[in-house]
């Protein structure tokens, strides 16, 4: 039911996109959550056209303890990519990633958990980052790198792994772009099994950072968005 509704919604909303290319999301385990408006630290909606493209932004969605990347690619992403999720999770093998949103189809969002061994940003440090201008590990520009074991993800291609040990893409977050407001809304995600693993693996840390049970609470109707370098005290540039 969710999936059918999701495809319908996506097909309808994406038809209104500037490029006019019909885009369809589809995933067996896609989940809708309460829509959350992306805001700045003062609570005002962020303006999509003001987002920089030199580093990733962090927002939490759909849970208070789940960090996600928002990235301005500075160029249009690929569209309608057939991708495969975790090969070891039954019924979660394939999905269609529709591409970036925004006026230039340049804005993408993913759960910021490495799908290899679930490294993830916290307030102290982030071993994952968007290396806009490249790095020794990433090679060329515009890749998400995980310093822990050297996986490189391509955010313009649904964050599929292009090098290293991860076997499937970062989990996609669905964004909706409101062109009249120039605002962004997070509306759902796919691949929830990894979130369960993340909550289990990091439970002690998450309780310490957010409080017992708080990390599993929904973010509500808005979520604060800030630069990764503002969120994590240290972002190793591997």
């Amino acid at each position, binding site marked *: 039911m969710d999936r059918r509704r999701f495809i319908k919604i996506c097909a309808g909303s994406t038809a209104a996109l500037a490029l006019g290319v019909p885009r369809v999301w589809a995933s067996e385990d896609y989940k809708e959550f309460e829509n959350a408006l992306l805001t700045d630290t003062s609570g005002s909606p962020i303006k999509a056209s003001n987002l920089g493209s030199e580093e990733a932004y962090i927002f939490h969605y759909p849970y208070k303890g789940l960090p996600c990347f928002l990235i301005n690619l500075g160029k249009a992403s690929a569209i309608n990519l057939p991708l495969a999720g975790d090969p*070891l999770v039954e019924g979660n093998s394939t999905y269609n990633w529709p591409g970036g949103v925004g006026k230039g189809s340049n804005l993408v969002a993913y759960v910021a958990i490495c799908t*290899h061994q679930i*490294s993830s940003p916290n307030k102290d440090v982030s071993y994952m980052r968007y290396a806009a201008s490249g790095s020794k590990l990433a090679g060329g520009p515009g890749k998400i790198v995980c*310093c*822990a074991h*050297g996986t490189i993800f391509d955010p313009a291609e649904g964050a599929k792994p292009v090098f290293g*040990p991860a076997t499937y893409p970062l989990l996609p977050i669905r964004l909706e772009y409101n062109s009249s407001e120039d605002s962004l809304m997070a509306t759902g995600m796919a691949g929830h099994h990894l979130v369960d693993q993340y909550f289990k*693996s990091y439970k002690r840390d998450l309780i310490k950072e957010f409080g017992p049970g708080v990390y599993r609470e929904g973010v509500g109707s808005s979520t604060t968005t800030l630069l990764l370098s503002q969120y994590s005290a240290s972002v*190793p540039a*591997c």
Partner: protein
Amino acid sequence: MEKEQDLSRRNFLKLSALTGALTVGGVATPSSAFAKTVSIGKTKAALPKAKGPRLVVVGAGTSGLTIAKYAKKEYPKFDVVVVEKRDMYSSCFSSNLLYSGIINLEFLADHSFLDAAKNNNYLYFNATVTGLDRDKRVVVTSEGEIDYDFLVLAPGISYDYEKIGVTDLGVMAALRQTYPGGFISPTEHITIRRKVQEFEGGVFVQTVPSGNYRCLPGPYERACMIASEIKKNKIKGKVLILDANPQITIKQTGFHAAFDELYKGIIEWKPTSAVTGVDVEKKIIHTEFDSIPFDDAAIYANVRGSTLIEHLGLMAPSSKSNQKEANIDTRFYNYVGDPHVYVTGDSRPHPYSKSANTSNTEGKYIAKVLAARAQGKEIEWVSPRTVCYSMVGADPIEAISVDAGYDYDPAKDLITGFSKDTKTFEERDGAKGKATLEWAQGIYRDMFDS
């Protein structure tokens, strides 16, 4: 092995008759307290009946834990039992970071075998393997016998003191206890940490063996960590690296830079200095050309496949392994001629780096091999990957790293060397220093969490 067991049993019965009292299960009972003899035939291990093809994994290090978890994921019908002689985990990987205080023991040891088993739907069985009957597919343990459909042996390494000229068993035992190598067990790590913390000056020797020893950069990394303590505490002393090899075996540019720029006058590296003997009492290490007095030391003897592999009759001929490793298929790891028994991790004869990341990535591949074979299928060979960081600075933390794969030559059925996409990152920096810690945390998560 069978003969030894029979002898043990006779001795035990004899002893029992002499003492005139026996206990059952460690607890004296009224009915048995005065029995003269008791029959102690072979017993089955106290495990539930297998619900599917039973996969027994011996050894809960990086290789065994990875295989147990991922074999179950790849083929959920597997009934997986992990047999491990330790009752508490503590990793060998990352242990060098203890010596400079970058990490504490909890970093290495706050990981439970029970949680790993619960999270990943297998059984942890605390026992020591003592025998193997491959015809009947039975593995014998200190806690009874276990039938298997597939057996994976991942027992790690043993030290080979004979290769450093120590053949006397008394000297070998003294050396093992007094100057441990620190590349196998947690108790060695704790001893070496105490040595470093109590070092008041003079010469601290770190030896580097020849051959494919565990953790190729490990001895050099450790020298850096000890040197950083000497530097920080302004101790009048140095670390003397006696290296059996003519050159640093891996990441040589990065290590030489660290020695010269961070630890000038504190680390002295002597190549082509294989240890040929040790006088434990007088604290003198002999090499081919020198006799070197020392104040304290970590003497890393050569490495061989675990003695368990030899005891179970699975050792390769010397033409295939000069380190007493297992006689297994190059690509699929089964004991040659037996598709039900596998040897993985650091007892393999391959020229792979004997390191955690190698065993972790190799383990995921072997899990696929086992899953395929349980279903009568075969899969293509995939190279393991060696992503390996070495901490060279402790204050601030700075590291260097390598990311290596391997090539297989089907004509020779041999691993021929590093793959073309192998990269080294030898400019030390803080980013890699921090990544070193997360590298380990990721592997812990991968082995212990669901």
